[in-house]
């Protein structure tokens, strides 16, 4: 069923960021994102100043979901990697676990081989972290405890 999938505490994000920093150091990729399959951005490291990371996440999740359906149509359960080659910038998207994706954006300072090699280690490490994170879904998150009342009647107000 639908429901809250992620409760990430500061220590989780620190561990996630440390793992992504190792990936960036080893590969010379420009940036790396962790995205859930619903299109939410979970973490991002590297040079992303000019990038619309929210749209990138939504589109990458959509593209990955689309290739999964294509895989199914040709009798494959899933493609585990998606690679887009540009003139200067390239994108490598790979599965972390059943719910999340790792997206690396890189240029010709590195190679697809190096990205694939280190992506595999990074995916495994993050997958282990997420097993713990999902276990802590059972932990209470009190931030919304006092939610209610008039403030929530109109979360949005047009300009």
């Amino acid at each position, binding site marked *: *069923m*639908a*429901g*809250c*999938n*992620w*409760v*990430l*505490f*500061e220590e*989780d*994000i*620190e561990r996630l960021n440390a793992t992504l920093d190792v990936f960036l150091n080893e590969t010379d990729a420009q940036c790396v994102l962790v995205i*859930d*399959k*619903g*299109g*939410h951005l*979970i973490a991002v490291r590297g040079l992303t100043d000019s990038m*619309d990371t*929210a*749209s990138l996440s*939504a*589109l990458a999740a*959509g593209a990955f*979901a*689309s290739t999964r*359906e294509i895989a199914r149509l040709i009798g494959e359960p899933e493609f585990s990697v998606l690679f887009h080659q540009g003139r200067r910038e390239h994108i490598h998207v790979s599965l972390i676990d059943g719910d999340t994706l790792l997206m690396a954006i890189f240029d010709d300072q590195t190679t697809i081989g190096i990205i694939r090699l280190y992506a595999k280690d990074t995916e495994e490490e993050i997958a282990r972290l997420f097993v713990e994170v999902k276990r*802590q*879904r*059972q*932990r*209470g*998150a*009190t*931030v*919304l*405890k*006092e*939610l*209610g009342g008039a*403030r*929530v*009647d*109109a*979360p*949005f*107000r*047009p*300009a």
Partner: protein
Amino acid sequence: MSAINYASKEIYFKIVYYGPGMGGKTTNLQYVHQSIPQDNKGNLVSLATDQDRTLFFDFLPVEAIQIHGFTTKFQLYTVPGQVHYNATRKLVLRGVDGIVFVADSQWDKMKENVESFRNLEENLAEYDYSLDEIPHVLQYNKRDLSAIAPVEYMEFLLNRRPTRVSLFESIATEGTGVFDTLNRISKLVLLKLNEEMEARPRA
């Protein structure tokens, strides 16, 4: 699937606008995009055909109120309404927190409305989701046109589940009803998350 990030102090939700083709789903997002202050919105991304029909989805990230120092962020999606795009329509529903069903009020669109609503229930079932659990509202759009069905008739056709849901009459091209709809569904998903959090044991 909402997400709470204590490091960035953000809470994310995914809202999907569903309904028959040419019913006004994309127009809703366009109106929201043009009406929300610049600092509270991202780019409106549309994956559309050359004829401006939605091919995969439209996507608009927007920020709403803060709750106890956490920024609430809503990711608004539309699905392609045309019948033959069901494969992509289903993909967009993954991880949905709230649904706006945009129905076309014109008399000759009633069958398409009903079929689209059934299709929504079927596609949700494929993810083991159900409208019993996912907050949703109905929006009866194009109320400014002449050959439209009365609201009571549309209620009879579409609002038939054991628990009746909120309905909004709208003219999305003019913005009428657009924010009423968005505010209600946003409130519902916030309350739903609150309910889930309260049900959890404390750390």
